């Protein structure tokens, strides 16, 4: 009885949480539902949540005619290389900052994390484009990949260093006695031990690469065939026939949401722990 009473007392809590569940979920649900509407229905019966008839054609046409096939391919390309690159860059940097003993290591570390306070976001887009122009990478997604991987995300650096600090030093000392070099310890011992770290950093970098807009946008401004999904959707919106292509835009939006949400449902633990561990270090 006491058990039941306890839960009865929590009913207001559940009600509030359910309300916010609906608020969080509704816009996404609405997007998916609208993506099955014909363009006519989007423009005239926006007030109906469930489409009068489900039009799968939107997806087929968006995929073939509105170039979402290319956009999706570009997004996968961008996300793949950003994830692989970031996994290596953050484990390598985390390992060096955790284990190396050379002079000036601390200074370099603080130099790197100090950039958190001078990050200017959108303001540095133009200079970044100009820097990449020197290497002739200003018109391809490779430029974005290189900036994202070598520009080092401070959050990932924090997470990686923290994780590798928690790996017992005895393990690599034993390897050292067996004649393993510094780099050898990294790829024989530390890297294989870093699976949870790789999952966290990989998922975080997938999220930011998949959702990234401004940087890939300025790098693909002149060539729509190189645009990733999010950029492509906005390109469609700003192009002249925006009103007649809302159905493509919604189908494209759904296409961009599906992989993200699937991965989130599968790995939400890593998402939540990863996004918080770097930020709240007081």
């Amino acid at each position, binding site marked *: 009885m006491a058990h039941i009473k*306890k839960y009865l007392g929590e009913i207001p*809590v559940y009600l*509030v*949480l359910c309300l*916010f*569940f609906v608020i*969080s*979920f509704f*816009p*996404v649900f*609405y*997007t998916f539902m609208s993506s099955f509407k014909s363009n006519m229905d989007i423009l005239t019966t*926006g*007030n109906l949540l469930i489409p009068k008839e489900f039009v799968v054609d939107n997806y087929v046409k968006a995929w073939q005619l509105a170039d979402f096939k290319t956009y999706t391919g570009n997004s996968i390309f961008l996300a793949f290389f950003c994830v692989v690159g970031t996994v290596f*860059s953050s484990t*390598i*940097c985390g*390992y060096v*900052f955790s*284990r*190396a003993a050379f002079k000036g290591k601390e200074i*370099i570390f603080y130099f*790197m994390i100090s*950039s958190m306070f*001078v*990050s200017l*976001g*959108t*303001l540095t*887009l*133009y*200079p970044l484009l100009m*820097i990449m122009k020197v290497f002739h990478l200003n018109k391809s997604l490779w430029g974005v990949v290189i*900036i994202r*991987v*070598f*520009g*080092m995300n401070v959050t990932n650096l924090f997470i990686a260093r923290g994780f590798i600090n928690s790996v017992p030093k005895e393990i690599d000392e034993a390897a050292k006695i067996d004649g393993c*070099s*510094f*780099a050898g310890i990294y790829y024989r011992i530390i890297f294989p031990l870093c699976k949870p770290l790789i999952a966290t950093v990989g998922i975080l970098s997938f*999220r930011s690469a998949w*959702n990234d*807009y401004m940087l890939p946008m300025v790098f693909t401004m002149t060539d729509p065939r190189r645009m990733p999904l*999010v950029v492509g959707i*906005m390109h469609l*919106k700003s192009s002249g026939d925006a009103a007649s292509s809302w159905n493509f*835009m*919604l189908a494209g*939006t759904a296409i*961009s*949401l599906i992989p*993200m949400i699937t991965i*989130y449902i599968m790995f939400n633990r890593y*998402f*939540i722990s990863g*996004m918080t561990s770097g*930020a*709240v270090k*007081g």
Partner: protein
Amino acid sequence: MMTQGDKAANKHMKSDNVQAMLMIAPFLIGFILFGYVPIIYILRYAFTDFGGFGECKFTGIANFVRIIKRDPDFWQSLLNAFLLAAGKLAVEIPLALGLAVLLNRKIRGMNFFRVTLFLPSIISAVIIGLIFSLLFASHNGMINAILMNAGLIAKPINWFNTKWKAMFILGLASVWQNYGINMIFFLMALQSIPQELYDCASIDGAKGIKGFFYVIFPVIAPIFQSILLVAIVGSLKICDLVIACTNGQPGGTTEVVMTYIYKSFFGKSGRNIEVGYASAMSLVTAVFLGLVTVVYLRATKKLKEIV
């Protein structure tokens, strides 16, 4: 005298250090190239009339004079960013804290709510901007339909035809995007508090909201300070969401500082490409952002000292 063994160990250590430096070098170079060189670039062009192509002339402080004297739109966009940040954080932070307190209860189903309430935080800001512009569309938007069915309004509201209505939607979209992550931050802070403290609070009769502010809040105050700083700076730098949702419409009145400067750099929305002038505006904005951080840290010093 070093023994043979010491020498070998020494040599070993040296080669280890060389390896470590070689491993970090590419990232350090990339870091300087992409983190600091852009700042030098901006500093260099802020005092010129560079237009993106061809020659550029040193113009001294002319750009800054223009910002101060002849560009009310820039100040308007800066003010908009501040207003938007203040308005949305006034809702978002208490909301996130309240939800975190609810989620911190040890009852069934909390993990489900934690995962679902966090969902908006994984979606691209651009997609969120698009979804909200559609939800609030005037003649075929879902929100107008709901309000009309509920009998709250007689005819559809055009949400995007005045500045304040459009700003309201931007704020709403931004709260929707970010409350989940701040909620999780607060939840982490709450979970780091030992159970004994909650017990003590309830023994002393400090229950409910009063108990929270007297006993629990002081403990999480330092973390609260960092979360709020991250939220403030993040909100002031809002960009993607605005571009996707209103793109400065109606008539450039919802332009925020980041979109305004971006458009000057790249000559968007009918503006000329003015790299020099945009660099100068970037510098001014950077100074403002820095000032906000400094003032904030001073003003909230107390939060850190409580514990």
